[in-house]
């Protein structure tokens, strides 16, 4: 059984998934960040592959990506960093990147390298569902990697069912019509949407992302899904951490979830 499935089998509530951009703040911080997030008790780690034109991401993630690329971040280096980090962590690890990066690397080679580096799943926001089904589904299924797709408040029911049928691991619920890091707080309208999806009884677990930035929004999201994803807020915390990266990570995670639950 894959790590992601095992996690959701043993824990259905309060899943904390943290996103960070590989190669940021320092080029070689990836290993430290994964190791520290693991120690701090995070349930899932999403490693962002820095991209020059991240269409679905907000300014915080784009800025961290630009800096990582400038510092020399590459896909090969990322695989080496993750391979090392895997020795200190058994937490489910996902790679989040854009399809062009995989196309240039070669999708088959990318998948093989992901598996051997200890990656558990992929999130490729600009991969169209029909292209996935036609060109990559067999490859992904054979590799054992989970494939996580996004839904938004605008996604209609029929399409949500289709996405649920193609997804493994979990479904990434975009909390609002927004890019990452755009808003704060959760509105009544969003809660209606969370409830609507909850009532659909999808086969996949659900994690809510975008606009989750602190304990309050995390707890709220957890009431309506299996957990939530924090990205931009975590990267902002790293921004301020030039001297003590590990300390900043512990401090941030503990501000979301009390250390007692670790």
């Amino acid at each position, binding site marked *: 059984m894959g790590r992601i499935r095992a996690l959701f089998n043993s824990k259905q509530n309060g899943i904390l998934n943290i996103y960070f951009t590989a190669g940021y703040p320092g080029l070689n911080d990836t290993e430290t960040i994964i190791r520290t997030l693991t120690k701090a008790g995070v349930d899932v780690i999403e490693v962002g592959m820095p991209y*020059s034109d991240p*269409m679905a991401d907000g*300014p915080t993630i784009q800025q961290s990506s630009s800096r990582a690329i400038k510092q020399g971040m590459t896909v090969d280096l990322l695989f080496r960093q993750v391979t090392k980090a895997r020795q200190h962590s058994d937490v489910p690890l996902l790679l989040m990147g854009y399809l062009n990066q995989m196309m240039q690397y070669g999708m088959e080679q990318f998948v093989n390298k992901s598996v051997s580096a200890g990656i558990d799943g992929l999130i490729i926001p*600009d991969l169209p569902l029909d292209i996935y089904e036609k060109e990559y589904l067999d490859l992904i299924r054979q590799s054992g990697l989970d494939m996580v797709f996004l839904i938004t408040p605008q996604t209609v029911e029929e399409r949500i069912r289709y*996405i649920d049928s193609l997804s493994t691991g979990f479904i990434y619920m975009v909390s609002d019509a927004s890019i990452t890091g755009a808003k704060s707080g959760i509105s009544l309208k969003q809660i209606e949407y969370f409830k609507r999806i909850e009532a659909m009884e999808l086969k996949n677990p659900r994690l809510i992302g975008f606009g989750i930035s602190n304990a309050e929004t995390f707890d709220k999201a957890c009431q309506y899904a299996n957990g939530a994803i924090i990205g931009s807020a975590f990267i902002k915390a790293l921004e301020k951490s030039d001297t003590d990266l590990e300390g900043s990570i512990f401090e941030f995670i503990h501000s979301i979830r009390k250390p007692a639950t670790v």
Partner: protein
Amino acid sequence: MRFTADDRGFYGDFGGAFIPEMLYANVEELRSRYLEIIEDQDFQNEFRGLLKDYVGRPSPLYLAKRLSQKYQTSIYLKREDLNHTGAHKINNTIGQILLAQRLGKSRIIAETGAGQHGVATATVCALMGIQCIVYMGEVDIARQAPNVSRMQMLGAEVRPALSGSRTLKDATNEAIRDWINNPVDTHYIIGSVVGPHPYPDMVARFQSVISEEIRWQLKEQTGSEDPDLIIACVGGGSNAAGAYYHYLDNDNIRLIAVEAAGLGVDSGESAATSVLGSKGIIHGSRTLLMQTPDGQIIEPYSLSAGLDYPGIGPMHAHLIDSGRAEAVSITDDEALEAAFECAKLEGIIPALESAHAFAALEKIEYGSDDIIVLNLSGRGDKDLETYIKHLTGDGKD
């Protein structure tokens, strides 16, 4: 072979809609309705009426006698430079604003590089009384100040794109983000035959008025509606798509796509996508684009801001990849020289973009009895500062 989009927006291997789910509903609304709307008779009447009375179409097809004499052939200029706002860009923005109204949208966003598409969008928004926000790279805002003022005078808000290289590519990213954040009331007017399906097809259809007119104008003047060659510059490729459109399936007509080589194809400062690019995804479309081996998109360079785009539209990627169109690369200096030649021989100051198409006359082979149509996509007023620098020998070295 088929050169227009299939029903999924593919041109051979190129095109499609590679977009995140956050954009799916917006793009799907457009995809499912654009054909029905633009094929509707009411729409066509209004579109044609505005092109005639507001834009000033048909634009003349003019036999450039002194230029023809110099190059020992027959060169006809399609005068898109005479359109309202000074370029072909307005054909598309008129079409899209009418479409946006029929979709019930109350807010328009657009991206712009040099400001030409931004001005054309601000113009139609003023015409229709619709709110307009134009994203423009901070760097471009500084170097294209007159166009920024024009957009503001037309009532548009110009928002600086502060991310990445702060040029056209980033203005496009910002506009896409705005659309993600405003999925219900906003229509995004893309300025070229780029972006996710249905944009490349939709914009090409609006621009196809160019080749539609060339057909009957050429027939009137020469007795045949078919030229031997059509020359057009390609950044994203909307003026070229419009000039080629009704001739795509006629293999006897050579299509020449002129790209900007910048300081030279091998100089590292270039925008010659068909030579330097490889297959990848940019702004939601699978096409040819300039990128690193790791798939990071490279910032292109051309003195001409309208050709300064790291990709080309998927239709052009397919035309060039399949051999239907021939790509030619023209440097900054060659384009400047051609602009001055056109000014002196024909009394027309072309846009720097269009000057690249003129420069191709030196690079390609043709016969003395050939008929060449060159799409003069825009006028050179906006480039005067660049031209003056060249005149005084103070140009970019």
